[in-house]
């Protein structure tokens, strides 16, 4: 494998990892606050549709982005009402949200555009364009560093940079701010937060809302940056891979980055059977590569490679009065 191929592969990795990363960080906020979220997939899908739909109708990708975030946050709100206010089963709520998004997106798409669950193709200002970073062209001819900067680091839509910037931001918020301290506490022992005079409900809603925003970004990225429009079920299980990455990352922001990059790399390798053949010396089944993130998650979960301990109060509604 030559250097150009490597850069291309990594470039593809970055593109494919971005939605995973955003969704993974969304899950991180939610689950750190004690709310399990298997509805990442659904939120991402809803955001993908609404951002493409509104971008297509308005011609502005930014309006689309807002709409996507709003859609994702609406589902977050449903999840919050079910699992925080009414103390329902968070897993079941997540399942319902995934179905709701899968159905509603197609239903609305059909109603608005009558194109079999698609939005029209986006162009011009209705899409996120790649950004060329400063000096990319000047540096490009340099060996090694040139392609690295000009091809790999430069030339992504803004959402990619936002996603990567969210990692240190998440770390800082969680571990360096009051809000983060309280958020982590509420996922470990909500009663401690409650008796310390802080609202458990408020914190959990805040966490779920942040998850909504991040899933919104992830969805918008899929349909308005990575693609030029929405097609049904376009999240294609990425929400579940993000969930797997979250466990893989043991609920830590920097680990989440590495985990999603790894899963992104698997995706990138799937498009390069020639590279895999060159590397391994044999033909690797596409299905195996596709299933690899899931298999690895199971292995991690089995505790053979370091144990993943979820936040202690995760998944349980905070019930004071029986």
């Amino acid at each position: 494998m030559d250097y150009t191929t490597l850069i291309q592969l990594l470039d593809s990795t970055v593109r494919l990892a971005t939605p995973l990363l955003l969704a993974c960080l969304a899950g991180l906020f939610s689950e750190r606050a004690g709310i399990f979220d298997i509805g990442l997939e659904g939120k991402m899908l809803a955001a993908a549709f609404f951002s493409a739909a509104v971008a297509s109708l308005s011609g502005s990708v930014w309006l689309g982005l807002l709409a996507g975030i709003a859609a994702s946050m609406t589902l977050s709100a449903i999840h919050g009402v079910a699992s925080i206010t009414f103390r329902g089963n968070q897993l079941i709520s997540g399942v319902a949200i995934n179905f709701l998004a899968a159905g509603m997106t197609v239903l609305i798409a059909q109603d608005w555009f009558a194109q079999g669950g698609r939005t029209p193709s986006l162009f011009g200002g209705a899409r996120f364009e790649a950004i060329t970073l400063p000096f990319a062209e000047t540096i490009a001819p340099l060996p090694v560093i040139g392609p690295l900067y000009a091809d790999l680091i430069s030339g992504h839509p803004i959402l990619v940079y936002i996603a990567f910037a969210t990692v240190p931001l998440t770390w800082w918020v969680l571990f360096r701010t009051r809000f983060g301290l309280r958020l982590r506490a509420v996922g470990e022992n909500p009663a401690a937060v409650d008796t310390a005079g802080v609202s458990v409900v408020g914190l959990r809603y805040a966490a779920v809302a942040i998850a909504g925003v991040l899933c919104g970004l992830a969805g918008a990225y899929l349909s308005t940056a990575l693609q030029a429009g929405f097609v049904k079920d376009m999240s294609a299980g990425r929400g579940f891979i993000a969930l797997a990455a979250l466990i893989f990352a043991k609920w830590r922001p920097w680990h989440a980055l590495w985990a999603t990059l790894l899963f992104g790399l698997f995706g990138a390798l799937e498009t390069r059977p020639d590279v895999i053949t060159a590397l391994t010396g044999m033909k690797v089944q596409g299905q195996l590569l596709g299933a690899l993130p899931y298999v690895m998650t199971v292995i991690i979960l089995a505790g053979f490679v370091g144990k993943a301990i979820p936040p202690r109060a995760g998944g349980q509604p905070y019930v004071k009065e029986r």
Partner: protein
Amino acid sequence: EPALIFDLGGKFDKSFNEAAFNGAQRWSEETGESFREIELQSEAQREQALRRFAESGANPIVMTGFAFGDALGQVAGDYPDTDFVIIDMVVEEPNVRSVVFNEHEGSYLVGMLAAQASESGTVGFIGGMDIPLIRKFACGYAEGVKAVNPDAKVIANMTGTTPAAWNDPVKGSELTKAQISQGADVVYAAAGGTGVGVLQTAADEGILSIGVDSNQNHLHPGKVLTSMTKRVDNAVYDAMSEGTGLEKGVQVMGVANEGVGYALDEHNAELITEEMKAEVDAAAAKIADGSLQVHDYMADDSCPALSF
């Protein structure tokens, strides 16, 4: 009242199913009559849709896609008075017309154009689901490429192995980028909805693409080299026009009877030079009169021009 059943890709896949829809639409506009239609959502619905239409008196019933073969084989016998038309598959029942296309011939022609337009000597092919039919496309294409430039490299990828592979533009887009990085400057997408992502990315990245089934040149004017047209629309139009009592048996649509070909219109006029056109048309003529045999992958499950 005739009926049309679309396959899982959906009516508006900008490709195969959409071509069928256009044919029906044309018939409807010309005759002022209406037709029934349904987009399948699930496997179990195939037989159900067939029976439902048959029982409600729809005739003829046209269906798009080889996946109906099994269901139609089951159903056709139960409704001897209903005529069925299946596209892309041969079902040997007395009340069935099977329309099959020589996609390898059309693909051969666009393969020639690809090789002529390519500056790098490397061209790409992106298939949808990895099935013999799509390999047939790929194989004809590769043969066409090699006919023009024997040293040309053809990179062929399949999107996946599930029906989802027909509808995964994200992956189509990544595959395109991967092929571009390997030097491809023309890519041919035979991948249903996935092709939308391929054409989009090719346009974004400034290389040429080749559409499939319908004429997709208009999607990105000046960026789509041509489209391998598979006149599903004609097949549907013909079937509906003939109406009840249409002619049964196997109908082969090839270059000879303009069932397949390549698209030339105002959107790609500047991309196809006179010489290119002349050379391709000459080949087409030879295919039509039988003096040029394009290899059909499905005849023996092998491809001399390309290995999968």
